[in-house]
């Protein structure tokens, strides 16, 4: 029989306000095996843990039940406290009477009754707990960063600087990401490429960093400290070792009509191309869908003009398999598609553009050479209207419920830059709210209004109607003056919502990382573990976790790097001892458990067993503790009931069921 101690936490008033904690502690003493019960204001505090320590020593406790917050919050705390007092840490169970009880119920009697039942279930479980000892696993001292935008670049640099090798996998032909498409950045108006390209160069030159561009993660297996990742290096059709990056192939390529992804489709590129002039690596890629050689078999001009002989039409995709200890996701974002927002005439008029398209137009390397002009007729606009929150903070399912966070600031930036360069152009911004929380952000916005005379109108635009003369009629509301506005504009710029890169769901599935309904990756704890995924060994960097601007992305990228470094610096990791175990006497070697095991942790051995005096050799399932992650799939599949999961055994769960239904 166990000697169990029950500790009921008040959590200040978080629990005590709705649960009669004294009564819960008193009721505990009626339960089998309970020899000690007490309540205290904050069990997780030093003083609270001291109470646990004292009770374990004085009452010779063999098991603990802590009635407190979620085990996801403080299970480790109390396990450590038990261990310090000489008790096996796996002899601790938590009854979650805060998140699952006091916070959701109002009635004290009802909440207290439920808390007692949850406590009983935990006591029933701890009664059947057995001491467990974690094993050890090794750590591969190499990190993978998925995504080569500013988030991935910064994370990779920080990890590499700490002395660990890092691989970056980037889907497009060059690293740089969204930031490389921007012209200027708020609130300093720095030139985006001037601050980004040195970092790209640094990554390229760093001895600890290896970049796989034009590559994608194909599969991920393993677990924290020991991931095995297959990376598909798509056929570039250009030998990276031979290419000198002279660019002649791109000049001479006769197929030049493909819309440029980098310029958001506003300009065209050749079939053999680097996305932009400062691309890293500066090695072009042949777009096989556009290349005449691949389509018709005739052409081959690039191969003829390439003095280095780098063109290789026969190249095929290559799969690289590599081991990593930590994986950082930095897959970034894209703008939402605007097909559900036809009222803004985005598909009807070339002069209705998104902010990212304006960014390319304003850029000297962009499709118009940096001249602000209408894409329909090349004329200089005199009247520009910006529309905010296109798809952000949207109440219906057309758009996103969240605030995209960066639009207010980049619109102020665009407005300011336009007014600065073209003082005769009128700029009007329709907004719901102007959100400027950030260092020097509000000052920046006020400069746009006060110094540059940008006309801000609080209200939404209902419709943009293209006129026969090429102008755009903007119908909106001015909520402050309570009037309807009809405004003729030459150009309309839409601040479309940002959303996580559509590929992230596939990657999250491979990594078994949690993802929310908006496709943002979920952090392990919103406040305390914001750069870690709940899946151990997976870290989050940049907008894949939530909307952010560049400074925030860079800070988070550094934080993710530190967390990854902290993992890589360890020589050994303790493994979860809650693994499956097979009862040799019951196992009949049927292989069903091995079939459902996602980790290949179950093998079969011919072993001698002594079954009630009969000695014989039998084929038996053997679980490899180092590989088993403790999901329990095998335990339910096993037809003879031989498989059980330590820490969540059949008897324990049944005991919990019984306690709840009692």
């Amino acid at each position: 029989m166990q000697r169990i101690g029950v500790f009921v936490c008040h959590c200040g008033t978080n629990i005590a306000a709705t649960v009669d904690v004294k009564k819960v502690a008193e009721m505990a003493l009626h339960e089998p095996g309970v020899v000690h019960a007490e309540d205290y204001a904050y069990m997780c505090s030093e003083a609270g843990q001291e109470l646990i320590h004292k009770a374990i020593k004085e009452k010779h406790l063999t098991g603990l039940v802590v009635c407190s917050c979620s085990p996801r919050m403080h299970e480790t705390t109390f396990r450590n406290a038990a261990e310090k007092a000489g008790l096996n840490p796996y002899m601790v169970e938590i009854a979650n009477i805060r998140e699952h009880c006091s916070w959701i119920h109002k009635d004290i009697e009802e909440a207290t009754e439920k808390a007692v039942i949850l406590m009983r279930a935990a006591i029933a479980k701890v009664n059947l707990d057995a001491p467990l000892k974690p094993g050890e696993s090794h750590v591969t001292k190499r990190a993978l960063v998925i995504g080569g935008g500013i988030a991935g670049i910064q994370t990779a640099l920080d990890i590499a600087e700490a002395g660990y090798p890092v691989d970056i996998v980037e889907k497009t032909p060059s690293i740089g990401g969204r930031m490389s498409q921007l012209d200027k950045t708020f609130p300093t108006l720095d030139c985006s490429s001037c601050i980004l390209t040195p970092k790209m160069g640094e990554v390229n030159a760093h001895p600890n960093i290896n970049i796989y561009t034009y590559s994608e993660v194909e599969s991920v297996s393993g677990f924290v400290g020991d991931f095995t990742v297959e990376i598909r290096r798509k056929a570039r059709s250009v030998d990276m070792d031979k290419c000198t990056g002279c660019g002649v192939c791109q000049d001479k390529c006769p197929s030049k009509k493909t819309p440029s992804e980098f310029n958001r489709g506003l300009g065209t590129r050749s079939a053999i191309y680097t996305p932009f002039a400062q691309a890293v690596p500066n090695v072009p890629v042949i777009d096989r869908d556009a290349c005449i050689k691949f389509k018709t078999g005739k052409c081959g001009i690039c191969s003829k003009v390439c003095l280095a002989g780098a063109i290789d039409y026969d190249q095929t995709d290559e799969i690289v398999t590599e081991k990593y200890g930590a994986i950082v996701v930095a897959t970034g974002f894209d703008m939402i598609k605007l097909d559900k927002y036809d009222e803004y005439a985005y598909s009807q008029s070339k002069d209705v553009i998104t902010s990212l398209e304006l960014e390319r137009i304003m850029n000297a390397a962009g499709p118009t050479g940096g001249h602000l002009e209408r894409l329909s007729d090349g004329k200089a606009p005199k009247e520009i209207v910006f529309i905010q929150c296109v798809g952000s903070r949207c109440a219906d399912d057309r758009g996103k419920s969240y605030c995209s966070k960066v639009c207010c600031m980049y619109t102020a930036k665009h407005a300011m830059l336009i007014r600065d360069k073209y003082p005769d152009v009128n700029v009007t911004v329709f907004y719901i709210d102007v959100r400027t929380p950030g260092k020097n952000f509000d000052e920046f916005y006020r400069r746009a209004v006060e110094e540059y005379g940008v006309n801000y109108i609080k209200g939404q635009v209902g419709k943009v109607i293209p006129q026969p003369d090429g102008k755009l009629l903007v119908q909106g509301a001015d909520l402050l003056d309570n009037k309807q506005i009809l405004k003729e504009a030459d150009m309309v710029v839409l601040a479309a919502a940002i959303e996580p890169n559509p590929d992230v769901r596939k990657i999250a599935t491979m990594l078994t990382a949690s993802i929310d309904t908006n496709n943002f990756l979920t952090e392990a704890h919103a406040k305390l573990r914001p750069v870690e995924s709940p899946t151990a060994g997976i870290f989050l960097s940049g907008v894949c976790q939530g909307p952010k601007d560049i400074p925030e992305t860079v800070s988070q990228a550094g934080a993710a790097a530190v967390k990854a470094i902290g993992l890589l610096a360890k020589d050994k990791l303790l493994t979860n001892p809650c693994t499956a175990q097979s009862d040799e006497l019951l196992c009949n070697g049927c292989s069903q458990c091995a079939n459902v095991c996602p980790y290949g942790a179950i093998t079969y051995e011919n072993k001698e067993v002594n079954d009630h005096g009969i000695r014989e050799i039998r084929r038996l399932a053997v679980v490899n503790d180092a590989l088993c992650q403790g999901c329990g799939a095998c335990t339910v599949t096993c037809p003879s009931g031989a498989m059980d999961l330590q820490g969540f055994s059949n008897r324990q769960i049944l005991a919990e069921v019984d306690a709840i239904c009692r």
Partner: protein
Amino acid sequence: MSIEKNEEFRPKIVAFCCNWCSYAGADLAGSSRMTYSADVKIIRVPCSCRVNPMFILRAFERGADGVIMCGCHPGDCHYTSGNYYARRRMTLLFSMLDYIGVESGRTRVEWVSAAEGAKFSETMHEFVDKITSLGKNVRLEDLRCRNL
């Protein structure tokens, strides 16, 4: 069988929640102060595939009026494929329960992610309402287990 008179029916509901998604979703419901009935009691399991059909039968045997199992959304399982196994097992179990006369509304499978506190709370509301409308489970309860 005793007939409870003049007493408001409070169903006994057992919810099995996987540690990675649904249990965290229930935590989020709690920290967001989204209420649901105190009749729901949650049991934490590592994965929905840990839920043996036997556990559900045991709950009914011991007088539970409804059992709900929550896991990660299909495709999002922390252990890659556990919820697919769970889904198949539960489909089989539920059809069998239906066959022996346990109303199909007494059991439910729902996918709730760690970010879906609101969904967890709504699901529990709905389920409690459903079980309340179905009334006491009498088909599988082992009366010898009463007041053990």
